[in-house]
């Protein structure tokens, strides 16, 4: 309502009314233009040239200017413009290079007034002077712009753009003598109408053709340009150098751009290809259009605001042969469909969450636990009341930090860096990794590595020393003891994970699980989330199921024959060592939901009857040969999945790589790929590029290994003139010098270049290292005492 009243004043009492409507034309339109009175619109195309009256409910064809027996190419219009001073005066640009003016005041049926046939190629654009009645400007494919005085038979002056073709010409609204022209080669030129010899100013605005430009109706010197490179740019021409003030990236090449009246920062665009919609942008918010009109079914070729002081009515013509009037209030607003919430988590377990103010307020009221979040920090954007979307834009950002030290991920970094994944025998890899894990205090993981080695490696490599680190020592009491330890360890993890999960959905649980100092936080809400299911199940399966079964059993109850069967299966030559060293209870847990328990576990932790039965039946069959390691693969796979679900993809991927073929076939490609990508993503977030590359290299998944095959080109700039080196080898085009030379061997350095920051001489890493062994002076002979760190 406010707007309407303002419009009314601007229009001098006669408010525009109407509705969103369209009418069918007989042929595709190329351009439209509105009469000064805002009640008529002219539509021009290859085979259409008509004037329509814009009425309340519909368009009414008023006049067909395409008269005559034979269709003439002079009528095949590329552009049309209605004079803003004189209601009877129109001009069209024809595809054959003719500029035609039309006088509606002529009494005869044929309103054609004058014909200028000076251009040799298609005329792309015509433009009347905004205040002068007789001045017409045209821009053509032949690279010339011509200024016509309608009182004379031919052009007054010709401007040469020194370029292939002119795409648009526009008189400045504020400066009487100035006009802008845009070119196919990406340039924009500013001309003074009195000086046809050379342009006042020229700059490159776009990469590729600039299809259109428009002067701001109020702000002097603001020029909007749109180009094939899908950008709309707003330039400030008042400064000595044209300054790019705003840039809007659209999704298709920009065919037309028009400032919205009365809205300083709004402009409407339509595209040349592919995209049929008309967008109205606020140039200060270049990512989401302020409004969008989706009526057309083919590309929009012409747009015009109906009245120079009314921001609500937009007219458009299209290749789909329709003429439309769009009302701003009927526009769809993409911002309404945009996701108003954002969530991101940091490397160290911090979570940031942004949402609309109202939403946050409502939610925190509903959920009492919001107060328990550890360190919620709220940011609020200061709102500029002048800006649009003010209702939508107000949002709150909350950041939840984990306690210092608690969420430290240093173990992850250390592990990633120190794990050995390939290049050594499996047993050594397992041992090494177990050692790494142990040193970082991750006993469960260490134990798993040890188990893996036992499962997959030949017996000769097993030594009692490497097994001697397990947490529980006693053979039968180990299990309950460890279980209780685990319970304690797990509970905070479980609690915090659930909490986090509720707040954001996909927190990485590993950060929390290993969060040793995490305080125990109970679940205020009883809603169970998916993330918490897994550890819960796991604990149940382990403690309640397994333990209940195992606990009543005494070692004596074990079938006396069992060790004899079991040991050969595992092919452990030294029986008593195995008896001495109970398997890691963590390992047992890992496999708790599997019926297969390894022989050594059976020994140490008094097997359940079911287990021993299954073992026995198999061991009979395989008495002489070793139990194939396939036997365990199901188990190992479950273990990997368990780690992955816990969030420790690092473990899953590392084991996957180390074991290679042994387990790969049992896990489906997609899961593997998923693990790999998450691990690589994590590594890269920690800037562990080398490790991540190694993982990519070692992965067998096709989708992953091709990750580092994409865009492997390295672009090099010349070290002297900063120009990009083109394909001409290592010599710069411009300064004809070789790229960085090695000061020692005087060859071009194509790989690692190391240089002294003092004298900026340097060369091949090897060469410099060698040189510095013998001398500390610069190899270039500059006398500098080079220092390298």
């Amino acid at each position, binding site marked *: 309502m406010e707007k309407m009243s303002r419009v009314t004043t601007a229009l001098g009492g006669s408010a525009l009314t109407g509705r969103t409507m369209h009418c069918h034309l007989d042929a595709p339109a190329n351009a439209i233009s509105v009469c000064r009175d805002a009640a008529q619109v002219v539509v021009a195309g290859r085979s259409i040239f008509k004037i329509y009256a814009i009425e309340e409910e519909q368009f009414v064809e008023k006049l067909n200017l395409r008269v005559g027996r034979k269709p003439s190419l002079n009528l095949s219009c590329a552009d049309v413009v209605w004079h803003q001073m004189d209601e009877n005066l129109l001009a069209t640009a024809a595809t054959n290079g003719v500029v035609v003016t039309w006088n509606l005041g002529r009494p005869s049926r044929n309103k054609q007034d004058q014909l200028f046939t000076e251009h040799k190629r298609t005329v792309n654009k015509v433009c009347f002077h905004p205040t002068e009645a007789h001045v017409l400007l045209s821009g053509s494919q032949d690279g010339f712009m011509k200024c016509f005085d309608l009182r004379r038979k031919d052009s007054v002056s010709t401007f040469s753009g020194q370029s292939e073709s002119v795409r648009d010409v526009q008189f400045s609204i504020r400066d009487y003598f100035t006009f802008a022209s845009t070119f196919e080669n990406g340039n924009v030129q500013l001309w003074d109408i009195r000086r046809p010899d050379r342009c006042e100013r020229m700059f490159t605005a776009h990469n590729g053709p600039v299809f259109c430009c428009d002067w701001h109706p109020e702000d002097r010197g603001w020029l909007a340009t749109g180009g094939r490179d899908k950008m709309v740019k707003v330039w400030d021409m008042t400064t000595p150098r044209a300054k790019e003030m705003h840039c809007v990236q659209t999704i298709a090449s920009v065919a037309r751009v028009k400032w919205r009246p009365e809205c300083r920062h709004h402009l409407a665009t339509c595209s040349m*290809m592919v995209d049929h919609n008309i967008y109205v942008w606020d140039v200060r918010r270049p990512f989401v259009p302020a409004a969008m009109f989706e009526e057309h079914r083919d590309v929009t070729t012409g747009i015009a605001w109906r009245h120079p002081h009314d921001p609500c009515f937009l007219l458009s013509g299209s290749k*789909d042969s329709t003429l439309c009037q769009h009302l701003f209030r009927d526009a769809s607003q993409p911002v309404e469909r945009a996701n108003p919430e954002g969530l991101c988590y940091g490397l160290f377990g911090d979570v940031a969450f942004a949402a609309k103010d109202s939403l946050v307020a409502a939610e925190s009221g509903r959920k009492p636990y919001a107060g328990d979040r550890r360190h919620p920090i709220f940011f609020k954007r200061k709102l500029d009341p002048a800006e649009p979307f003010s209702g939508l834009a107000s949002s709150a950002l909350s950041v939840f930090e984990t306690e210092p030290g608690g969420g430290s991920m240093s173990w992850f970094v250390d592990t990633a860096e120190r794990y050995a994944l390939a290049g050594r025998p499996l047993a050594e890899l397992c041992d090494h990794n177990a050692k790494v894990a142990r040193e970082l205090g991750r006993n469960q993981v260490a134990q798993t590595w040890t188990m893996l080695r036992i499962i997959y490696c030949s017996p000769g490599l097993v030594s009692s020393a490497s097994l001697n680190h397990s947490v529980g020592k006693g053979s039968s009491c180990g299990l309950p003891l460890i279980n209780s330890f685990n319970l304690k360890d797990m509970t905070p993890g479980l609690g915090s994970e659930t909490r986090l999960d509720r707040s954001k959905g996909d927190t990485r649980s590993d950060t929390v699980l290993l969060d040793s100092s995490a305080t125990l936080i109970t679940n205020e809400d009883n809603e169970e989330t998916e993330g918490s299911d897994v550890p819960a199940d796991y604990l149940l399966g382990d403690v309640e199921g397994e333990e209940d079964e195992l606990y009543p059993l005494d070692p004596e109850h074990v079938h006396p024959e069992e060790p004899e069967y079991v040991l050969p299966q595992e092919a452990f030559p030294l029986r008593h060592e195995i008896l001495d060293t109970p398997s890691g209870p963590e390992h047992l847990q890992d496999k708790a939901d599997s019926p297969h328990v390894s022989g050594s576990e059976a020994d140490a932790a008094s097997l359940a009857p079911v287990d021993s039965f299954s073992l026995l039946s198999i061991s009979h069959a395989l008495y002489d040969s070793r139990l194939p390691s396939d036997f365990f693969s199901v188990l190992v796979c479950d273990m990997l999945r368990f780690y992955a679900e816990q969030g420790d993809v690092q473990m899953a991927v590392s084991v996957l790589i180390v074991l290679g073929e042994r387990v790969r076939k049992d896990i489906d490609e997609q899961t593997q790929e998923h693990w790999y990508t998450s691990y690589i993503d994590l590594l890269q977030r920690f800037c562990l590029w080398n490790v991540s590359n190694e993982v990519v290299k070692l992965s067998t998944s096709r989708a992953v290994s091709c990750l580092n095959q994409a865009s492997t080109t390295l672009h090099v700039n010349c070290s002297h003139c900063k120009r990009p080196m083109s394909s001409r080898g290592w010599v710069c085009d411009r300064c004809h010098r070789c790229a960085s030379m090695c000061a020692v061997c005087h060859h071009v350095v194509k790989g690692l270049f190391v240089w002294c920051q003092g004298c900026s001489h340097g060369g091949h890493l090897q060469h410099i290292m060698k040189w510095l062994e013998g001398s500390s002076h610069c190899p270039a002979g500059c006398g500098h005492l080079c220092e390298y760190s």
Partner: protein
Amino acid sequence: MAEGENEVRWDGLCSRDSTTRETAMENIRQIILRKTEYLRSVKETPYRPSEDGPLNAVSLDGLNKLLARLLMLSKRCPFKDVREKSEFILKSVQELGIRIPRPLGHGPSRFIPEKEILQVGSEDAQMHALFADSFAALGRLDNITLVMVFHPQYLESFLKTQHYLLQMDGPLPLHYRHYIGIMAAARHQCSYLVNLHVNDFLHVGGDPKWLNGLENAPQKLQNLGELNKVLAHRPWLITKEHIEGLLKAEEHSWSLAELVHAVVLLTHYHSLASFTFGCGISPEIHCDGGHTFRPPSVSNYCICDITNGNHNVDEMQVNSAGNISVSDSFFEVEALMEKMRQLQECKDEEEASQEEMASRFEIEKRESMCAFSSDDEEVTPARDVSRHFEDTSYGYKDFSRHGMHVPTFRVQDYCWEDHGYSLVNRLYPDVGQLIDEKFHIAYNLTYNTMAMHKDVDTSMLRRAIWNYIHCMFGIRYDDYDYGEINQLLDRSFKVYIKTVVCTPEKVTKRMYDSFWRQFKHSEKVHVNLLLIEARMQAELLYALRAITRYMT
């Protein structure tokens, strides 16, 4: 004899590092000498069981292939060390009593005397860089490159585009790309391109079975056959139904990006086939028909020469004819320049009426559809290219353009700069830019010379050629007076253009020689560049318009 150790690796030779090349070369030398020794030992033991015969033949065949490749390297490698070493190896093999091959034909082109063409080894630094790039990318320096190097500026853009299309990021797998190249070249029975790409196709791991014919390729590629056919011969018939048929074929469907990649490849190879025939490119030295093991006394002939009616005798005649008419042709150039001057001057004097203009276009279009009398006898494609690729039966009669009505395509409504570019760049990023550059360079290329004249503005002539080709495809520029074409292009030139663009396989040396007799070969190659780029753009416009229509 273990095959593994005799596997020859050529890729080391492509390196820019001379030591790498040297080791690679040495490796090749050893393998060849070993093979030679083996063959000799087989020969010298007189009584061999007969079953050794085929084995022997196989290994001889293998050796011959290697020798042919070496011969190619000795002539065509941009690196001097490789050239010399290859020659040395060949010599030493010859000394061991093995017959070595020698190149057939007369340089890279049958139309252009070898001495006119730049010799490998005498190029300047810029060209050398181009050659080295090309060699590094493909492991060869093909005859097309050697002919195009008349225009290094264009060549660079051409090679960059081709390299991008075949080897860089793109939606299609590598062997598909080469296979599509083969399909396109086979449409014009261009055995030269087919041979090249059959090798590349196998090299990137393509299934040799596919080469037995399109019906052995995956259904997806078979579906492309129709588009290939229409695009090559009557692009104006492409409709959005063609596109829809390709995109909606359930498990065999193409994605839009793949389709655009395929379309660009098809049009690229159609027009490259035009260039191959238009400039009479000879078979590569290491391919079939590029070399012979026969001693030079046997009369040398090339299979392509025969099929195109280019015997040596023929060449002689033309040569003598050329000599006689030097003065005639001198006047030709003068007359052409005079006409250009006139057109320039009287441009503004009298304006033809609209109907006149329209009818001029129609006349040119119709005329270009007419078959040209003498050369139109049906050539039965007897080459083994036709074996590869489906229905030659469909091809030529049905597709003769005689009497066809071609609808008019208004370039102002759909042009490359505004529409085509945007679409290609959207679906196959960067390629739009590359092709756009290539079009620009080809269209704007000029040295401001005409035959013996300097400082001539040739833009009018170039525009006439470009627009004439588009006119043959029914593409009309509203702002062009098609009367100019008649003034500037004489009959023999038109015949040549028409043949090169529409039925390149019928180009003969006589046609090549009989137009623009006084012009330099480099200028004739320039004309060919215009022809192929205009043709490519025309085909692309039709295909892309159909895709756009499908999308809206």
